[in-house]
């Protein structure tokens, strides 16, 4: 099959992207603890801009101090951050690549809480089921402040001459904690029926729109199927695709320009990023999170304890051959219900699979994280006629396991001639130094 469909430009309402490949949110702790951006992050993003993707969606970009997921990611919570983002955008634009900032609020899902705040805000006061991250139920005043934070952050993205924003409504972060029937236990107008659970997200879209106007690209990422019981069977399933299709319709009405389809009520989640679960890497790196939640110590013990760890591994792991295009049915369902473009993520790295999805109308673009970490020049490889890159991503997820302690990069030694070659690839993000 021809891969031409991949290289067709994609027109959003106020943004045009040169092809159908987006770099999805992925990065490491490359910046200063306080959220100040560094040359290293610019180096990171340029790898993908140079590699030919049409647009880059930034990694989680904190809109306020308390909502940061992990220290060491550039944030956008004050006007002082604007020059950094302007420079980053300028450098990415040199490669005819668009830059979309992903505005995120962790809620209670903070892997490594900054020393500045004790607990995260959430829809609920219950800790999360997996790690036991503690939470404080957000008051109405808290929610007003959060909406303002998103609106101000969106204004900063615009002032920095970037090309759009993505509100991170997926993967268990703050908006999922409101959207999800498996998490949200409020009895006020922000909890209960779907309409109430979607209120915070919709009001945030509204607040952002009133700050930046209609002509700045705004997309929302959402976990269309939450699979909240995928790992811990005693939990509820969470939102279904039917629930999420309805949320997407409301988002379209509220003035959102595109939907970005993801999955899972938490991050990480067995379904995202789907693939292998390496116990050895878990034992080596999960230690950083031991003091982050009430259940992390228990989890760490279980990771080390045979045979419980085998059971955990089996429940979490997904067959790598079943990973690519896993979310296409969800994308199709959303696409059928809305008139705005739909972007979908989930293990893409094969040109024919992507082209077929585009031609069938399952989606309008795909977003890729791991596949691009493995092959920064994936799009160029497609253009050169490769269907799969010669050394594809193996979905081993070691990039993810290492991110809290080590630089982001591909850590699958099998993909490199030597360990030294792998380390050099990881360290290349630090070049040039300034």
């Amino acid at each position, binding site marked *: 099959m021809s891969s031409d469909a991949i290289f067709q430009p994609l027109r959003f309402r106020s943004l045009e992207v040169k092809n159908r490949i987006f770099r999805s949110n992925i990065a490491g702790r490359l910046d200063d603890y306080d959220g100040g951006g560094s040359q290293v992050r610019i180096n990171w993003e340029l790898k993908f801009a140079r590699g030919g993707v049409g647009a880059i969606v930034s990694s989680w970009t904190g809109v306020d101090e308390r909502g940061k997921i992990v220290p060491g990611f550039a944030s956008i919570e004050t006007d002082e951050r604007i020059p950094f983002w302007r420079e980053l955008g300028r450098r990415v634009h040199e490669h005819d690549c668009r830059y979309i900032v992903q505005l995120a609020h962790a809620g209670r899902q903070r892997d490594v809480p900054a*020393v500045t705040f004790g607990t995260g805000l959430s829809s609920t006061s219950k800790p999360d089921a997996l790690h036991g991250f503690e939470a404080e139920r957000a008051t109405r005043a808290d929610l007003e402040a959060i909406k303002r934070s998103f609106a101000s952050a969106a204004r900063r993205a615009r002032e920095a001459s970037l090309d759009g924003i993505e509100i991170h409504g997926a993967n268990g972060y703050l908006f999922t904690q409101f959207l999800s029937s498996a998490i949200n236990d409020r009895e006020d107008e922000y909890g209960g029926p779907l309409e109430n659970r979607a209120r915070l997200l919709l009001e945030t879209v509204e607040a952002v729109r009133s700050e930046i106007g209609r002509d700045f690209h705004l997309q929302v990422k959402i976990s269309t199927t939450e699979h909240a019981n995928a790992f811990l069977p005693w939990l509820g399933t969470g939102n279904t695709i039917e629930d999420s299709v309805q949320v997407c319709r409301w988002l379209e009405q509220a003035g959102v320009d595109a939907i970005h389809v993801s999955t899972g009520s938490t991050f990480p989640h067995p379904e995202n990023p789907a693939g292998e679960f390496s116990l050895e890497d878990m034992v080596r790196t999960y230690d950083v999170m031991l003091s982050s939640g009430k259940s992390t110590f228990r989890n760490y013990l279980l990771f080390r304890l045979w045979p419980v760890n085998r059971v955990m591994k089996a429940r979490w792991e997904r067959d790598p051959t079943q990973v690519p295009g896993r979310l296409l049915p969800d994308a199709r369902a959303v696409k059928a219900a809305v008139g705005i473009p739909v972007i979908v993520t989930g293990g893409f790295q094969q040109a024919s699979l992507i082209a077929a999805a585009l031609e069938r109308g399952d989606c309008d673009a795909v977003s890729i994280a791991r596949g691009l970490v493995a092959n920064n020049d994936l799009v160029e490889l497609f253009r050169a006629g490769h269907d799969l890159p010669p050394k594809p991503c193996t979905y081993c997820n070691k990039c993810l396991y290492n991110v809290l302690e080590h630089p982001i990069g591909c850590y699958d030694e099998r993909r490199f001639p030597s360990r030294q070659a792998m380390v050099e690839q990881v360290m290349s993000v630090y070049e040039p130094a300034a």
Partner: protein
Amino acid sequence: MSSDVIFQPLRLGSLTLKNRVLRSSLAGRFDNYDGSGTPVRINWDVKFARGGVGAIISSNAPVHRRGRLVPGFALIDRDDRIPFFRELGKRVHEYDCKYIVQLNHAGRHRDIGDLEFPKGLSSTDRPEPIHGFECERMTRPQIEETVDAFAQGARRAREAGLDGVEVAGGNGVLVTQFLSSAINDRDDEYGGSLENRARFALQVVRAIRVQVGRDFYVGFKISVDECMNEVFPWLRRGNTPADSVQICKWLEEAGVDAIHITAGAAFPHPRNPPGTMPLRDLVRTYDTIAASGRYTFRNYVAFRTWPFSSIFRWQWERPVRRVGAEGINLPESRAVKEAVSIPVLCGGGFQTASVVANAITSGACDGVTIARSLLANPNLVELWAQGYDRPPRPCTYVNKCLANFLEHPLACYEESRFDSHDEMMREALRVYETAEGR
């Protein structure tokens, strides 16, 4: 007692400091993982230069990638690091403050190992006794390579226009791992007798001298009393002050310009930094290294589990309960001073002008080095100049700074010293604020 003596210039070989106070090795994980320096580190060091110290001893600067304690500290392992250190020195010199690079190789002591080298190098292949960091016994070519790495590090410091180097020889790093009778178990010419155990250190000093000549400051930091049995009673004590005094005499002969006194053949150690054990902070941050060594997870569990946590703390705090934190190393300093004719610098909890002045006038040392008390009061020297004997909000020796540095910015985390938690956090994050290019 008058504190005038603190403000007398101090001659250290070819180097003259404006006063008797040096900022000791102290910093957080402010740099890039790959070892390139950042504006944050410059902000950090400039803060102390502005506060009036005569010289700054850099935080440990590894001379080889394999010798890193933890990622996030600027390395001095390649010539392309020189421009960063040149800029750092230039900024510090604006305050009439000298800059001395502490050349280090961590050996087996690696709080967080790096990607490239799963194991550290050491004189021995036995794991470090507190955390259980694993290691590989150095071969002769590895020893030669490492000696040369120190020499090249010193050359880079000189080329960067800095004012000197200090060989990190105390606190359980690689040089200690050779010096210490509690660690070194070799049976070749680098192990066994004191003379053999000192061979590596002396080779490092001589190799540095060959590279930098006579007119460049070369200091040596040494744990005079190793006191390993104060960490765990079942460990051997290690080198005694008598052993170390002999080593210092040899170092003087080899061309060292000054001796810097510390204690303990491990880091941290009950005598360094002397103070209390911040258990609650440890539980929050020691998790980062739970997978780093054979005993780290055991330790983490012990820190969380009463009564082990209390026993651990009681044992740890014994030496300081007995002799106090401030000036804890003065007896050892005096012993060295009586044996050598080069200047002696002493570290250990100093923050009272009269104590410092008395230490100098009584001949226990020629200058003092300070880490935590300057972290609490970066303008400590100015406060003394204004007539304060102790700062209004002194360091409390609770060691929360140390407990936090692996996960959080290095700063004073003792809330009682601030008006509010917010004020404390503002101070902690200020090091990032003036970063260039923002």
